């Protein structure tokens, strides 16, 4: 009798554990556990140069700008697409925002960044859906075009450092609370779109099986277009934060903007990996924070940049691989 009761309790316990492991709480526990682990790790190795409350606030401020871009990226990555023109859009939208801020102050800065970003997204989406060629190819071409346009835009203002526009008079978004407010609006908006509109469901459906999505009556081309528009809307907000943090923006050429793609993308990887727990937005935000912790931890240890990049990349791969193991033999593209 005792044994039977024990077995029944054991079965119930297993069921409870299994349910917990599928829940969002487990996802949060994993993410926060990882953040705590890396904080403790680097704090022990570098007690004075890492992880003080002031520095933690700085890490958070740094990570939120990438998290905003990561949220935008999520919309198209989850549909199996990619966009190389994010960095170029950040540069161009920032420059347009700065130029408009000269005449319209903060209104010009915000609208310039966000509207320019969104317009570029509409153009990307239009070209992708019309040309019917892979998103990577379309967006590499657009990246080159946008970089060239940015170089032209920067010549519209002859004052200051050559090739750079500065926005010394509109810097509210380079510190709290306005940077947090802008980022929070972006995170809430993304959460809202994923949870309270059809878009989130349809983006996932298209990414899971486009044929089935089509046969369910979903207009796949339309939602891919919307995905691009949303991505670049968020990139516009990221541009607002980036140009404020940097107090200006330098125009680049020769695919120099490409490196700006990858930090937001790292957060997106976290979002995709933790999608199964139903917490993609939180995963992007906390994921970016973890990446920033690792990066700054290594800086605190005076690790050379090349090693820093290596370790950050390796940790990212390890986390995403361990949390997102597919079926053996399944095709991963």
């Amino acid at each position, binding site marked *: 009798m005792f044994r039977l009761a024990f077995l029944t309790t054991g079965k119930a316990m297993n069921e409870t554990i299994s*349910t917990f492991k*599928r*829940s969002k709480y487990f996802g949060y526990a994993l993410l926060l556990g990882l953040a705590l682990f890396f904080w403790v790790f680097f704090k022990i190795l570098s007690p004075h140069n890492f992880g003080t409350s002031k520095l933690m606030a700085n890490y958070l401020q740094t990570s939120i700008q990438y998290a905003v871009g990561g949220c935008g990226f999520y919309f198209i990555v*989850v549909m199996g697409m990619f966009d190389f023109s994010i960095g170029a859009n950040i540069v161009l939208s920032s420059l347009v925002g700065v130029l408009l801020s000269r005449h319209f102050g903060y209104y010009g800065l915000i609208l310039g960044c966000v509207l320019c970003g969104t317009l570029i997204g509409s153009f990307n989406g239009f070209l992708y859906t019309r040309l019917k060629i892979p998103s990577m190819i379309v967006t590499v071409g657009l990246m080159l075009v946008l970089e060239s346009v940015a170089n032209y835009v920067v010549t519209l203002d002859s004052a200051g450092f050559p090739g750079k526009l500065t926005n010394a008079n509109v810097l509210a978004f380079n510190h709290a609370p306005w940077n947090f407010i802008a980022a929070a609006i972006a995170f809430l908006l993304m959460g809202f779109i994923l*949870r*309270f*509109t*059809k878009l989130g*469901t349809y983006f*996932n*459906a298209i*990414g*899971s*099986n486009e044929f*089935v*999505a*089509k*046969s*369910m*009556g*979903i207009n796949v081309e339309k939602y891919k277009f919307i995905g691009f528009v949303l991505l670049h809307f968020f990139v516009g907000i990221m541009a607002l934060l980036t140009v404020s943090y940097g107090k200006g923006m330098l125009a680049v050429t020769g695919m120099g903007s490409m490196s700006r793609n990858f930090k937001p993308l790292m957060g997106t990887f976290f979002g995709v990996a933790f*999608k*199964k*727990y*139903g917490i993609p937005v939180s995963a992007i935000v906390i994921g970016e924070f973890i990446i920033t912790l690792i990066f700054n931890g290594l800086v605190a240890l005076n690790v050379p940049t090349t090693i820093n990049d290596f370790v950050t990349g390796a940790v990212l791969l390890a986390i995403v691989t361990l949390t997102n193991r597919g079926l*053996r*033999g399944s095709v991963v593209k």
Partner: protein
Amino acid sequence: MKEVVLRSEKINKHFGITHAVKDVTLEFYRGEIHGLIGENGSGKSTYCSMLSGIHSITSGRFLLEGQELNIKSLVEANLHGISIVVQEMGTLSGLTVAENIFLGREDKFMHGFIKDTALMNKETQQLLDSYGLKRINASTVIDNYSFEDRKLIEIVKATYFEPLVVTIDETTTALSQNGREELFAIINRLKESNKTVIFISHDLSEVLAHTDRISVLRDGELVKTVNSNEVDADDLKRLMVGRELDKRYYRTDYDGRVSEEVVLKVTDLRVPDEFEHISFELHKGEILGVGGLSECGMHELGKAIFGGSYDRTGIVQLPQKNAYINTIPEAIRHGIAYTSKDRDNESVVLANTIGDNITLPSLDLLANKRVLRKKKLQAFAQEHADRMSVRMTGIKQYVFDLSGGNKQKVVLARWLGRNSDILIFDSPTRGIDVKVKADIYALMSELKDQGKSIIMISEEILELIGMSDRILIMKNGQINGSFMRNEALGEEDLIAKMV
């Protein structure tokens, strides 16, 4: 007098040169469970896919309650009161259970562009509870559930809105005994509420036990509709098979002599959830047929022998070469060839030329000190394409332009070029016309005469009987019967071991 709820009139479906459904005229009564049976490729799933808007109709029409249907998607079918639970996975990863169930039908939860997710989850949970699936959480991402649970969720999705006609296409094979009981409880509930269920299954006892009438399809044509209580499994088998054996294409020799020499020895081979305890020997110059129902594990067996299955245990040995096969490169190096049933995805590279496809596995043989010469590659490809009589504009033609039969010829040319000694052909004549079929059978006989050994996995019984020296029949992942080549061997003998 029973009321006809659904009627199909002269329904036809062509896939390229394949005439999958031919002039099917059929009536379904309100409140009946109607079985639809037939051999693999008889057109059952295609017929129901047209009814559900998954495939378009080539000609003919469906009439639901007297009104002609013009359905282009599953959602449109649902709106007309028709739904289907498909054979393959029909739920989408990354979506919650609730999102899957209401995909494409979210409008009832929309306030403008805002979705009332809480209400959708609540309603879904109530639905799941009413189906006895309380263990499934509506707001959980569906990836967290097993294949069986996902199948049950799909059944809820297909039936919750009280459709007039529900098709259950070969779903029971994915379910355990408990799952099947849950499914039949749902089917009976639909019948009690005067809905019509079209039930497709290879399990004849299941079909007989749960249906009112049964329609039999063969080669895309309707053979007969019978009352379930007036027939038995043998009657159904006769109706499914019931044609004269057509031996024109097949071998005419019946001496069944093969060499004593064992070229391949398979010992206790197992792939979890696919098959287990498979042991046999393949002799030099032997055509060994492997047959069974589609899901019996035979297709995975071919892949496993070739080293292409994950989690495989057991031994695949080449006794003459004292070699063991565990990976695909080892298999190719030791002269084993494999053609998959899934030709487009696993055999040919569609976006490559015929020449590139033929030379692909032989590049190491054609390289001169690791350097490939274009002329040599072209000559090689041309020689083997000509040998297989591939109908093409040239070897630079892309494979995606070719018909199914010619694609198969390209695959065969590839392995002939490699001069493989053991050939594993999975469904070698699937979906190809009679002329190419005859060419492939002739090639198999020629290869046999050359001392090559062939494992032919096939869902076509006539092909197995007509071409094999020996036939192994698989059922539920195990060998359930073995037959030597002889003139008296009939289709019924094989079917009896399959079902």
